[in-house]
């Protein structure tokens, strides 16, 4: 295992010293309780709600996100109750450029992005953090469930939350050590259920105690991702084919599919073996979606680009566990950084991995780093992998 000595940061939050903390408050219960805990711990806390939508929709009911006027109002009320100053900052332009456009471009290229990771990397712990530091704050506090451990030398490590069921370290895997040095996650040590967080909010007098959790992509108000993409990318009819290239049906835009997807294929012809078929590959260049049996989704290895490390990059091959999606389980891997590309081989094949997704590497509970999946290789019968260039190549995978 490689060691990752991070650069000590004198302004890194430490126990005991009151810090000037900027609490990002979405209007939800987690970030409100996080801000309350930071204030309770004696830090000098200022609340800020990020306006991320250029045209905040008024009071949409049912929809859950962080871009409504109602959310902004909920955040303000929580700040009032905690007794901290509160402001709304307009980061809509940055959010549109760095998160929304990236999201659309990734789908257009046949990949499956995770906008929450991008938002943490580019907005909360970049645009917001930079502004906070410039204005004299020491740290940005959010309601994420993850733990930051400060080593004796002052460097910091990101770990899974104490409560693994609520752990959100995956979406924070993009943070480098500089970002981590100024991050505060007061909920990370919480060994409590969500109900207990809500009870704590209730005890603090926070009206958001009963507010439903957000699950949607915040900038897609009605939760209709396909509709959102169709509006942005238009419709373009293309073929759905099997692995031999036989046309099975048509679709209205390759971006509407995700690798591993089973539902909504609307294939007229049943598979020869009668078993369900899944999306195996998306080729935006010839607008073709390839489907096949579940077994063809098994991946033996992958390469990932744009790696980000919580500390210095690892040298040489190493053994880790990997997590491939926000609520996914972890799986043992061997990984090595070759140039700028992270090469990962799974001990046992994993299913349904889409280019564009992030792979986060762990050493025990510690987050080592993350990278964006660029290519996957199939665990084909006979043992030799089949290269599957997600979205980057015109060819469909050879059988």
């Amino acid at each position, binding site marked *: 295992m490689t060691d990752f000595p991070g650069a000590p940061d004198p302004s890194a939050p430490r126990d005991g010293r009151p810090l000037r903390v900027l609490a990002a408050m979405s209007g939800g219960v987690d970030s409100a309780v996080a801000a309350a805990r930071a204030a309770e711990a004696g830090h000098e806390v200022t609340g800020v709600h990020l*306006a991320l939508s250029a045209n*905040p929709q008024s009071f949409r009911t049912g929809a859950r996100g962080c871009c409504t006027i109602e959310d*902004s109002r909920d955040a303000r009320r929580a700040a009032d109750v905690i007794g901290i*100053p509160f402001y*709304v900052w307009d980061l809509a332009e940055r959010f549109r450029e760095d998160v929304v456009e990236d999201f659309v471009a990734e789908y257009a290229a046949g990949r499956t992005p995770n906008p929450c990771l991008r938002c943490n990397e580019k907005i909360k712990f970049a645009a917001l953090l*930079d*502004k906070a530091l410039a204005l*004299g704050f020491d740290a940005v506090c959010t309601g994420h469930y993850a733990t930051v451990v400060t080593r004796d030398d002052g460097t910091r490590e990101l770990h899974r939350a104490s409560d693994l069921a609520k752990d959100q370290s995956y979406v924070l895997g993009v943070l480098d050590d500089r970002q981590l040095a100024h991050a505060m996650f007061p909920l990370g040590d919480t060994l409590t259920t969500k109900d207990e967080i809500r009870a704590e909010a209730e005890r603090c007098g926070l009206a958001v105690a009963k507010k439903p959790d957000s699950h949607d992509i915040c900038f897609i108000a009605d939760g209709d991702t396909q509709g959102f993409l169709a509006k942005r990318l238009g419709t373009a009819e293309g073929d759905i084919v099997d692995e031999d290239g036989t046309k099975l049906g048509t679709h209205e835009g390759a971006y509407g599919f995700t690798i591993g997807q089973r539902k909504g294929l609307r294939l007229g012809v049943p598979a020869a073996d009668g078993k369900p078929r899944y999306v195996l590959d998306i080729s935006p260049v010839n607008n073709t979606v390839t489907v096949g049996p579940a077994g063809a989704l098994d991946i033996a290895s992958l390469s990932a680009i744009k790696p980000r490390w919580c500390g210095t990059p690892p040298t040489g091959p190493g053994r880790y566990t990997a997590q491939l999606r926000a609520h996914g389980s972890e799986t043992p891997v061997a990984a090595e950084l070759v140039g700028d590309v992270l090469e990962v081989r799974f001990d046992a094949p994993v299913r349904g991995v889409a280019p564009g997704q992030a792979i986060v590497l762990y050493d025990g509970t510690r987050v080592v780093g993350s990278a964006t999946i660029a290519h996957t290789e199939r665990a084909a019968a006979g043992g030799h992998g089949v290269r599957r260039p997600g979205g980057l190549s015109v060819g469909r995978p050879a059988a």
Partner: protein
Amino acid sequence: MAYLDHAATTPMLPEAVLAMTDQLAVTGNASSLHAAGRRARRTVEESRESLAAALGARPSEVVFTAGGTEADNLAVKGLYWARRAADPARTRLLASPVEHHAVLDAVDWLATHEGARVEWLPVDGYGRVSPDALREAIARDPSDVALATVMWANNEIGTIMPVAELAEVADEFDVPLHADVVQAFGQVEVDFAASGLAAMTVTGHKIGGPYGIGALLLGRSYAPVPLLHGGGQERHVRSGTLDVPAIASFAVAGELAAARREEFAHEIGGLRDALVAAVTEAVPDAVLGGDPDPAGRLPANAHFSFPGCEGDSLLLLLDAQGIECSTGSACTAGVAQPSHVVLATGSPPELARGTLRFSLGHTSTKADVEAVAAAIGPAVARARTAGLS
């Protein structure tokens, strides 16, 4: 604490508080015919007389409303509807682009929903509309103009408009001119009769009176179509039970605002000049918004653009030091937008994002100015490192 946001709202005068609390204990609907009603009516009418006197108007020209926004809407929409009803050709609406949202959005609404053809009058670098510009706009076709609306003084940059001259031009063509006088009342001399305006808006809480009460001063020959239908209490133009305590308090504040105006302008104007000097010294490249000539701007207004700064950042940093001011423009969902006023004066958008308005009032002191003098330099330096996000 240095409260420098009096243009948003100013503390109530003790006399106004007393007038209000006295009336709160008294029962009586001013429309009732019995003794309690008559007593309430008397209070209302005495208040109307005081306010009319303070504003150079006749008592019958005072139409009480629930504040400045309602009065602006009543004038703009009501006069538009009435003028168009009298002659369907009259759908052209002339407005300055630096109006408060209460006028701006009412104008926009008429354009969207009522077929109004809006013409934004050109303004100079101080946000001022010239009489010639108004003449040119009306003269193009005097027969199709519904009304014109130009504020007496701007709420953000403090520029005073040549209202009497504008009214003269409008009058020449028989076009009613409305002015939002919310910021000017108590700071410059306001005489409704002498102004030649058809209508003007005033409000209580900017002059030391209570919130939620305002008035439209309305020439007797004008009958705007009502926004609210009901009992017809105010000249059949505005319905709703009269808020006797608020009206009594508003009248007291109005009387005092007019009586103390010259002294206020002198004293507060002096403090404002000191504040402008202090800010300019601490931040040499700060750009004073509006007319630099004290005769052309509200005595209590100081407005700056700070190059390379986000107004939001400055606000946070000053707030943390106990200095309360404003970026200048109202906002939705708390999101500060580049000010439409500053943009209308021809400022580049980057500069329009780094604005601060310091507005003084009857409780302002030298210590407030000193607090700004001490804090503004470091705040601007720090906000510049945060840059424009």
